[in-house]
């Protein structure tokens, strides 16, 4: 008993770490390859572009790579925090009620909370250690004091993670909150934290986000430690004070919530959006009582489904699946839906405004265009970001979402009990993903037109192209999902998407790389999507445009055929 009292938090930490071990392979892989990816893509790729015109010695760094290295460590830790302090906490309270189990074994609520934090900190530690070692190996760090930046990165991760943990643990129910936090909190705090450029590159009002962001404080601290970025002492004190302050306040909040929920109170947590739900319900109730009850028509109309070729797979009722998706979207909170187009806008703002001061523009030739003009950096990345966002949305919808409905909510099990065929379900879901993508793309293109980055004609064509690209990725994603058996395998998906994004010539022209690397990039689908978008945006078509289009046609055909072939494996397990 006293043993438990003293060591309780460590037991819980052990439990957290054990649950991570299930996907330990992914974690180690991510910690090793993330830094290599970033070094190659951002440090060397963007570095070629930036390094030619901007000198980083005034910040104390030898190269652009050295300048961003500590910040990338801090940012990746913060991103990990965004995951480890949301889903597992929700899982502990709701999905698997793990914390209630732990509570029954004489752990105090504080110990459960602290245990989780310790467990996650260990993960940060491992990640930081591997990351730092890789950076040293690539010569991105030179001073031995750089080892200390591991501490500032972990501190930054906690400063961003603990407030999120405090918030998530008040919830009884997760209705897309993790996604909202990801898009409205972590993304802006990351993109405006001066990771890839000095914060002062941004306009004043955007710098404010950086001052609030624990990531910026952790970045700057890391830079001081790694290469002695000249910083007045008071500012160093502010960085440390801010991070420690946030961690302490957030810990007190976490502790309070855990005691309330797991202590004698047994508070069940907030149901967000409860009032809105009740209001809508009351509205529907009154509408119905006004309308009176429905007349019972005589006889059952026949159940309708398609006969003929392939009737076992496709019963001709895609519409029902699509309509179900719309109903679900309508019942969910609108903010989740709207937030989808925020990500590309934030990326564009961050990189467009932040990187532009460091370079004078992209040579038209570098962007694959004829002529001698230069293109503004924002105009260069904007079409590419549209392609990236189309890819992300389609892949997410066709993999993670499909898998979730397959395994957790069992929606497809329900659908397969009816006269729907697997093809109806798959096509209905793809249509829904495209519908969502279409709205997001419309929003983003609206922003681009207002900013004067594309013409209306290009925008219209780009809109259709975005759907075309999304379709290609959705087909491949669906086919890939049919081979998935466990959730951990879904994590590998991210291992594919992130490098694809970083090596897609989105943020810099492809010619910064040696020819061999260029070939690899050109073999990947996203590069073709990005280039196709640019061709349309700058209205400069060539034979290559046809190659890009064909690439996606093949993707649709191969992915679609494979998905159709695997349809039974996917839905009838």
């Amino acid at each position, binding site marked *: 008993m006293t043993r438990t009292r003293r060591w309780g938090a460590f037991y819980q930490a052990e439990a957290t770490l054990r649950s991570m071990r299930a996907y330990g392979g992914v974690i180690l892989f991510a910690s090793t390859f993330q830094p290599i990816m970033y070094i190659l893509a951002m440090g060397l790729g963007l570095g070629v572009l930036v390094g030619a015109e901007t000198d980083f010695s005034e910040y104390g760094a030898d190269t652009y790579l050295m300048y961003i290295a500590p910040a990338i460590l801090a940012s990746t830790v913060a991103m990990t925090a965004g995951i480890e302090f949301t889903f597992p906490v929700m899982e502990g309270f709701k999905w698997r009620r793990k914390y209630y189990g732990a509570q029954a074994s004489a752990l105090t609520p504080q110990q459960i909370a602290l245990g989780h934090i310790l467990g996650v900190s260990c993960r940060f530690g491992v990640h930081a250690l591997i990351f730092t070692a890789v950076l040293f190996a690539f010569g991105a760090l030179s001073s031995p004091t750089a080892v200390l930046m591991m501490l500032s990165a972990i501190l930054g991760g906690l400063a961003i993670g603990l407030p999120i943990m405090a918030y998530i643990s008040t919830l009884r*129910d997760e209705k897309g909150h993790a996604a909202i936090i990801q898009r409205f909190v972590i993304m802006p705090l990351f993109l405006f934290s001066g990771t890839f450029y000095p914060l002062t590159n941004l306009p004043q009002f955007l710098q404010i986000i950086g001052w609030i962001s624990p990531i910026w404080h952790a970045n700057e601290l890391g830079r001081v430690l790694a290469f002695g970025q000249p910083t007045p002492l008071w500012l160093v004190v502010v960085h440390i004070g801010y991070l420690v302050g946030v961690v302490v306040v957030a810990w007190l909040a976490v502790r309070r919530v855990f005691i309330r929920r797991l202590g004698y109170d047994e508070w069940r947590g907030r149901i967000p959006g409860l009032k809105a*739900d009740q209001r*809508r*319900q009351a509205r*529907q*109730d009154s509408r*119905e009582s006004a309308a009176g*009850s*429905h*007349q*019972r*028509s005589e006889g*059952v*109309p026949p*159940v*309708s*489904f*398609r*006969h003929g070729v392939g*009737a*076992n797979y496709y*019963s*001709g*009722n895609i519409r*029902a*699946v699509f*309509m*179900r998706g719309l*109903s*679900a979207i309508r*019942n*969910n909170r609108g903010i989740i839906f709207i937030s989808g187009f925020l990500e590309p806008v934030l990326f564009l703002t961050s990189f467009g405004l932040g990187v532009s001061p460091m370079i004078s523009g992209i040579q038209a030739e570098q962007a694959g265009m004829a002529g001698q003009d230069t293109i503004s950096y924002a105009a260069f990345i904007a079409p590419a970001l549209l392609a990236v966002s189309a890819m992300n949305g389609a892949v997410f919808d066709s993999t993670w979402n499909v898998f979730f409905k397959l395994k957790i*909510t*069992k*929606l497809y*099990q*329900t*659908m*397969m*009990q*009816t*006269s*729907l*065929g697997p093809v109806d379900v798959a096509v209905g879901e793809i249509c829904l993903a495209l519908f969502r993508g279409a709205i997001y793309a419309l929003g983003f293109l609206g922003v681009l037109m207002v900013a004067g980055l594309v013409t209306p004609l290009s925008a219209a064509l780009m809109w259709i192209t975005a759907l075309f690209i999304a379709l290609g990725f959705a087909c491949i994603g669906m086919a890939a999902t049919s081979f998935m058996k466990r959730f951990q395998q879904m994590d590998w998906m991210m291992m594919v998407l992130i490098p694809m994004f970083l090596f897609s010539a989105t943020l810099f022209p492809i010619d910064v790389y040696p020819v061999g690397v260029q070939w690899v990039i050109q073999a990947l689908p996203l590069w073709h999507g990005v280039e196709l978008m640019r061709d349309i945006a700058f209205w400069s078509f060539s034979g290559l445009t046809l190659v890009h289009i064909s690439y996606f046609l093949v993707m649709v055909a191969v992915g679609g055929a494979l998905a159709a072939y695997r349809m*039974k494996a996917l839905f*009838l*397990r």
Partner: protein
Amino acid sequence: MPISTALSSSAPSDTAPAPAIHAVDLVKKYGDFTAVDGITFQVTRGESFGLLGPNGAGKSTTMRMIAAVASRTSGQMLVAGLDPEQQGPEVRARLGVIPQQDNLDEELTVRENIIMYGRYFGLPRRYLLAKADELLSFAQLEHKANSRVEDLSGGMKRRLTIARALVNEPEVLLLDEPTTGLDPQARHVLWDRLFRLKESGTTLVLTTHHMDEAEQLCDRLVVVDHGAIMAEGSPAGLIREHSTREVLELRFGMDRNTEQAKILEDLLTNTDAGSGDVGFSHVEVLPDRLLVYAEYAESAMEKIHAAGHKPITSLVRRSSLEDVFLRLTGRSLID
């Protein structure tokens, strides 16, 4: 007895309609593990057919194969004359499926759950609006019509799942432990409703762990264990065949059960010929009590008392399917 006619002889002919379900040598393997190991049965139209068996016997797996949501490893199956694997949608259009675990759509309201489910069958919206009202009142969920499903209690969810499965007025209703989680009143309401469905010609196929439910609802049932059929017949017939008329339940206290069983067995077997007819069959040992199977349990009890044995409690009751089950599978149903 299992029906082992070849499929061809029972293919739909002009005169008689095809049986509701016709299964021959069904096998389902998950990797090396055989969940269903050669099951053969036939369900005629309008019949009410039960699958009984302990946990993991393969009941749900069999149901899922009938419902065309699981593929079979081998064997043949016709549902209303159609092969579920070849004509999945057409077969499922005639079925109402109530799975063991509720799989309601948590993102929709209660009413939307019914309407959407009907839409999956391609039923017109007009019809569904009226039908949803009817089913909501059947499930006694009118007051929850516009709530989110996640706000319902477990029993309410179960009722909604059952109501939803009736939206297409199915010919065959597959019920996998339909009343699990229902309170006694709701259970009786459901039995009543199932009875009426049966009278209107719906074929029922159900699995259950409640023997009273099986006795109430099933015309015929099979006892399944380890993926194979152990016995088949009507509830009364099975009791007659596999058990005595009456049972004597005795408690001697936990640790004495096994030794007492031996003593009683000897006592009843040896004295049976002599005084009065007991019709003794055997003694079954459960963790907490002994079951003495005898045609006349009262007389058996008298004998036991006369021999000087003093059980803590004793009870005479009629044999039930529970006893058949115990006899056939060596396991108690209630776990």
